[in-house]
């Protein structure tokens, strides 16, 4: 199958949806003439013109607000917030307005709005350009939160997000834009709210999303060398969360490690770990483990940055500990 990059997959999704539905438009900073800070919207201004690819002034709150208002009266906007760190400037519009609009107004209004943004480390972009804030948004009723890990999912999920009648936080990862992967030429979508088993396995489930799916896959590969069969489940959508798929996997493997780049403390991994132990207490052979970033402002220094977020070695190490510990417990209790 054809291989394209994550950023190209996203661009295709935008282009196809804009062709399919004249109500779809893009608004954000530097999305037109510049083609997007991470080049996702490159060429779209030329193709669709300035009424559908709108370069906005530097005003994050009104970018989201204007997209929301347009959505309320019939548009299907895709607002871009260049870095998720700048979503801090639009939290009222996202959380108090967009997320609540449908429920708060008794179902009278709806907000079919996508907020595309990107987050994470990998470019030494420093404390104010590298945060991972997905946990905030997943905690807000009325928001959907999508975090694709592959070009295939990126394209299919973005198309679904644009067609969704609810506000969707669509969180990309700055380290993934150049990643290549198989993407069919034919039209397809990936449903929101469905996790995906990216690699089957039996001894442990590695639960991850966004860039950490690749860390998990690499760890699974390494673990297979030492006879440990790890299943990798890509959460893909944090809200609504597909607990069924996670439960099915962990019911089988009886062990789970949740991995994300965001700070472990108060991170979304806690939700998954807490749920799993609530639901599978009698099945789990070991506690659900969490791996995530250190609870520090992210250093701009690329080398330090790497040390702050989880890597393959740590995943492998934790799995070994889990399986080793369990063997140890089993042998002492025997």
């Amino acid at each position: 199958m054809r291989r394209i990059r994550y950023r190209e997959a996203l661009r295709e999704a935008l282009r196809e949806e804009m062709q399919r539905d004249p109500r779809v438009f893009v608004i954000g900073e530097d999305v037109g003439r510049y083609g997007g800070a991470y080049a996702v919207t490159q060429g779209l201004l030329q193709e669709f013109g300035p009424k559908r690819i709108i370069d906005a002034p530097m005003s994050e709150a009104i970018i989201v607000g204007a997209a929301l208002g347009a959505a309320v009266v019939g548009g299907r906007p895709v607002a871009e917030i260049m870095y998720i760190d700048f979503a801090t400037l639009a939290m009222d519009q996202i959380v108090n307005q967009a997320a609540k609009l449908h429920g708060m107004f008794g179902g009278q209004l709806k907000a079919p709005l996508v907020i595309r943004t990107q987050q994470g480390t990998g470019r030494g972009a420093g404390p104010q350009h590298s945060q991972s804030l997905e946990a905030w948004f997943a905690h807000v009723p009325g928001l959907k939160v999508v975090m694709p890990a592959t070009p295939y999912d990126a394209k299919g999920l973005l198309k679904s997000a644009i067609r969704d009648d609810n506000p969707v936080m669509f969180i990309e990862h700055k380290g993934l834009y150049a990643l290549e992967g198989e993407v069919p030429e034919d039209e397809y979508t990936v449903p929101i709210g469905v996790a995906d088993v990216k690699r089957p396995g039996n001894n442990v489930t590695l639960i991850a999303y966004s860039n950490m799916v690749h860390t998990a896959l690499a760890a699974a590969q390494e673990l297979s060398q030492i006879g440990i069969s790890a299943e990798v489940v890509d959460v893909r959508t944090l809200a609504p969360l597909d607990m069924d798929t996670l439960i099915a996997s962990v019911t089988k493997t009886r062990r789970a490690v949740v991995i994300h780049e965001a700070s472990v403390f108060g991170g979304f991994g806690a939700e998954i770990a807490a749920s799993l132990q609530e639901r599978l207490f009698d099945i789990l052979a070991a506690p659900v483990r969490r791996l995530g970033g250190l609870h520090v402002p992210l250093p701009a220094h690329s080398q330090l940055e790497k040390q702050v977020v989880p890597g393959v070695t740590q995943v492998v190490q934790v799995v070994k500990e889990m399986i080793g510990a369990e063997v140890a417990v089993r042998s002492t209790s025997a």
Partner: protein
Amino acid sequence: MEDRDTLVNLYYTMVLIRRTEEKILELLLQGKLASSMCHVSIGQEAVATGVCSAMQPQDYLTSTHRGHGHIIARGGDLRRIIAELLGRETGYCKGRGGSMHLVDVQLGHLGSNGIVGGHIGIATGAALWSSLQNDGRVTVAFFGEGAMTEGIFHEAANMAALWRLPIVFVCENNQYAMSLPWTHATAEHSFARKGEAYGMPGIEVDGQDVLAVRQVALQAIERARRGEGPTLIGAQTYRFLGHSRGDPSPYRDKEEEARQRARDPIRLYQEHLFREGIMTQADVDALEAKVAEVIADAVRFAEESPPATLDSVLEDVFA
């Protein structure tokens, strides 16, 4: 000159707002409101009335925490308003929004809001869509002067003027944001200057004079509809009562209050109508009777309506 119907309707609307809010205060004191949040606009009726009278049916508006007047002036269903305040399933938000979250999408009323300035974003976006679609609609964003110092006002005003969006920013300057006097909120009080910073005209108007408000609004709305961009209207008015229940406004000068209350917009307009021979005392009495009936009907409807339910809350999280 305006025709008689228009002139009488303006009076009717102002009285309807006033009497409805008096009834709401009564219901509040009786402990019948489902939510503790309730801000009445008594004293400010001419602004909502004048501006809404200048709007076309296809136009949009967004409103504030002090929004009863806007939805009534827009022709909102009094039954659904009272039902909302009493927490009934028949209310505009199925009883879960309350006084601060009235909305009527059929009337192009895109919602009132508990976040001061929060809805200005939605208004700007509605106008953006109208501009992209060239659909001939105009959006009115009502807000209090308190919202003028919020960042969202700045971002919205700048974007609207930059793109010449068909929107009218209507600041109801009732001189206070809770306890903060407008004199302590900003060093520059000229709406002309505030508008010019964005390249948009800023016009001040006596917000107690419903005909003056209507004229200014007609011009601003037509300007917007012609594609010439937004206008900032500063309507000078006064909040006759406290910010909300339990606020006796000790921070206000009693003389100032008396002076301002003397300029009751309903009385001023009534005097005008009498002077011009457009209405008589008998007309006014008949109109008051009709208003009383409409309100009584709405209250009856609301009280007979089923209470809001959790099931419906759970259903409406996602569209």
